[in-house]
């Protein structure tokens, strides 16, 4: 299963959702319980001892509840994603904050990920306390039912939903029952491609006019000065000494590129694996160009048609490539 590049409805396309609960490997628990009860019944009935039968009846009640109750719990389980990042990278974990009305084992299916447990639990050390909630509700500390779910998308794409398999074995842990649910994300999750092998890039600009004029090489990306913080500035550019000195947040101002923007056209083939490789190379190329200070004009094809735009950082490049779809005119493979 893949996170589909571009915006697409995962329901019915990437995963067939099953809302009915079904047991997980029921053979061993069912056969074991049935065997125990039958053997107990034979002994009880033929020994004539009423208490043996009575204890067996109680045991049967426990086993019946243990085998059936999780199905009800799983059927009534509700799970929601309360926080999710906007960006991620294929192959790298993305963490979502989930909440549920009961303790569930959650297995991300699309995108895939490792199992996690969500829901009311006893361990306060793994929960996040709400800000300002010290003693806010008596006995509330340690009882938050939000926990992390980790996704490890294999491919780039845009996700508005995640498909997860939730399972419960409450209250006795005898048999797990599961169901597949589609959970909406609070905001779209853009999974950019990995960094592949970049395209070979040309060297610096050559002066063909002669005259001994030396180009003053502009050190693109080097600090030029400091200025006050403006919304949108990256936090890694904060200049702490200047900030301490001035009393307000100050950021470094970098030299910008002065050269013409480099146009990168990305034509993705229809084959998904091949498209992924192309996207990875494109991503690596864009990142290298941006690191060199070049302005990159990225041309891709999205669901709404061709799109051209400048990308100034890895995040925006990742988003553009996450949304890119196969170009109908592109060859099947690079």
């Amino acid at each position, binding site marked *: 299963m893949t996170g589909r590049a571009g915006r697409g409805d995962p329901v019915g396309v990437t995963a067939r959702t099953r809302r009915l609960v079904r047991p997980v490997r029921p053979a061993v628990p069912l056969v074991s319980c049935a065997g125990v009860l039958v053997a107990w019944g034979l002994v009880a009935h033929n020994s004539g001892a009423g*208490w043996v039968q009575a204890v067996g009846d109680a045991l*049967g009640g426990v086993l019946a509840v243990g085998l059936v109750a999780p199905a009800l719990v799983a059927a009534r389980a509700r799970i929601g994603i309360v926080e999710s990042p906007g960006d991620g990278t294929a192959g790298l974990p993305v963490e979502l904050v989930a909440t549920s009305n009961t303790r569930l084992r959650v297995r991300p299916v699309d995108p895939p990920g490792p199992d996690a447990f969500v829901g009311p639990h006893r361990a306060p050390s793994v929960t996040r*306390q709400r800000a300002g909630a*010290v003693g806010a509700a008596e006995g509330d500390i*340690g009882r938050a039912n939000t926990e992390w779910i980790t996704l490890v998308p294999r491919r780039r794409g845009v996700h508005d939903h995640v498909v997860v398999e939730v399972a419960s074995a409450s209250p006795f842990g005898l048999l797990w029952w599961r169901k597949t649910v589609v959970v909406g994300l609070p905001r779209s999750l853009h999974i950019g491609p990995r960094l592949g092998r970049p395209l070979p890039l040309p060297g610096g600009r050559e002066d063909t006019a002669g005259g001994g004029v030396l180009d003053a090489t502009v050190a693109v990306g080097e600090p030029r000065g400091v200025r006050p913080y403006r919304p949108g500035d990256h936090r890694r550019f904060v200049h702490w000494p200047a900030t301490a000195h001035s009393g307000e947040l100050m950021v470094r101002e970098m030299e910008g590129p002065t050269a013409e923007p480099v146009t990168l056209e990305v034509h993705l083939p229809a084959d998904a694996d091949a498209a992924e490789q192309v996207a990875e190379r494109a991503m690596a190329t864009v990142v290298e160009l941006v690191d060199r200070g070049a302005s990159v004009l990225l041309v891709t094809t999205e669901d709404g048609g061709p799109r051209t735009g400048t990308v100034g950082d890895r995040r925006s490049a990742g988003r553009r490539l996450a949304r890119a779809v196969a170009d109908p005119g592109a060859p099947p493979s690079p």
Partner: protein
Amino acid sequence: MRIFDAVKRANRPGPAEHSITLRVACAGAVVTGIAACRAEGELSWNVAGGSIALVVVGMVLAYRTRERPLPWIKPILALSAVAAFIWFFRQLTGQTLYDVSTVEDPLAVLFVWVQVAHAFDVPARRDLAFSLAGSASLMAVAAAQAIDLTFGFYVVVWLACGLAGLVAMWSSASEGGRLRPRGVIATLSAVVVTGTVVLALLPAPHVAGKIDFPSAAGSGTQLPDPGGLAGDAKVAQLAKAGTPAGATRVGGFLGFSNRLDTALRGGLGATVVMRVRADRPSYWIGETFDRWDGANWSVTPTPHSPQRLNENSPFILPGPAPIAGPTQTDLQTFYIVQPSPNLVFHADDAHEVWFPTHDLFVSDDDSIVSPIGLGPGAIYTVQSYVDTPSPDQLRSAPSADAVPASIDERDTKIPHPYPRAEALAESVTARDGNTYDKVESLIAWIAKHTRYSTDIPPLAPGQDTVDEFLFGNRTGFCEQISTALAVMLRSIGIPAREAVGYVPGPYNPITDLYDVQASDAHAWVQVWFPGYGWQSFDPTAVVPLANPSPGATLVHDATGALKRLPWIPIGIVVTTASVLTVGARWRRRRPRTWADKAARSIEAAGRRAGRRRRPDETLTEYATAIDELAGDPSGTWRALAGVVEASAYGGRHPMPGDDRQILASMRALRDELPRPGVLVGVGGIRRAGALGRRRSSPPTRGTDGNPSTDGDG
């Protein structure tokens, strides 16, 4: 190799289990199983006590070494398990298997041994699950020999431990999942309802194999007069004295002896005298009387009675084969609870008896007499033929002329003429042409014209029981009623005798036993039918109660039921559950961190000052409000709240020692807060100096003898 790999994978030890709750629950279930086996006499005190101690030690050791189990444990445990099996088979080899207890006692020891060994090697959750399952086998072995409701205490405790263990197992598997109180209630309700439905739907257990016919001597002793009855003075009374409202004599029901004195009056109590497992409810006869003297029944001595059966258990009783050929049988097992006469009670047509002696005595009237007194713990089993002829068959029985001479001589004899009783009997049976209809007609007359009551006036000296009952007060209990019927039948030449025994008491669906009480002692009539033998008739069953009072009966039954409840075990369970619930709630509510504790201290201070914290209020906002109430512009409480929040969210915890000082300061400041309606003194509240540090110098006196004005504020 794939199978071998699969087996290897299945037996690979799982991850270490850290849940202490799960281990305690599993240990509790195992210990309860051992205690239950001990309560049923399957283990000695030494074995039970030692096993419990070893289980606890083993569980603790297994917990301590859960990450790195000791490598030499498994071989030792395997060897001990093998030794246990060898011991078990040696116990059974060479023994005559009398009944299931012969197997169950060594089986209980074997199970306990295996559980003890297993307790030392339970590092993972799966191993603890095996312990839990093993405790079920212990409970099954104990339940096989349980005959009363007190075993329910162990069942409840074991179920509680088992359920707690299962929930803890799920909690561990789900990395800390917990059940809400509503979920706990729903789970318990579902278990109880499901178990009850299964109990109601399943048929009652049925003893299948001869290995299951138990017999035990109990606390009885050899009697000096083999074959004689020891019901008069050598055994405990079975009944209490009658109520003061009726004229009573001292003593009670002494019917199970050589004579039945119908002049005795008394009320029988609800003491359970024995418990009976039977295929069907019957009248369990003890003995019969054939000689009537106007007030007493007794037995006519015969030269060859009683007959001694000297063949070891099971004893085949002499007697005719079933009339209709092979027929159904009724198997009854009697568990004696109170000291009883040495009579072997049985349903009609007893054929085979499993009794824990080498000999047994049978009288001419088919009474079975034990050579030992039957005390608590005695058990015996009787198999009877179910050979009840139909009314039509009895109607077609030959006439009284075909009665054997011995029976005719003995069982039609009356001590003196009963002209009125005879006339009455003849008038009632005038239209009946056979013995059966005559008996039924007399029973119907008795039902219509007499009343049942145990509260009747005593018999005057020389007074005849039958005359007094039929033509006097017409009120009596089973002895008077059955005697009247027997005498009326004898007066018209029909052989009849008095039979005494027990009727089935209340049936307990859990133990599948009839709890026979002292008040279930009963007397009825047996009538001889040529070709069919003695047939039982109970005239008392159709006699209506004197002065029936449904309300009083209901109250009486309810009171009796309440009295029979095992209040001590119930009280223990309820008390334990309450303590555990309160403890769990306290544990859940107690502050887990210093910041929690400090925050609660601030909230307590605010409540004391009459200001409760709103749900949407941060601690700092709340502390500011307290400062305003206290009139403290320096913001002491706010500063303290800041320290608490820095600890909770900033990870800046106060130094050890300072944290206690801060709490102490809070308590001191709290005491100085104005109460609602209490005037604040001049100077307001003393401030706590540096955060966490407060000068606490005692009040001093100045040189002028007056209290020093040098304070903290």
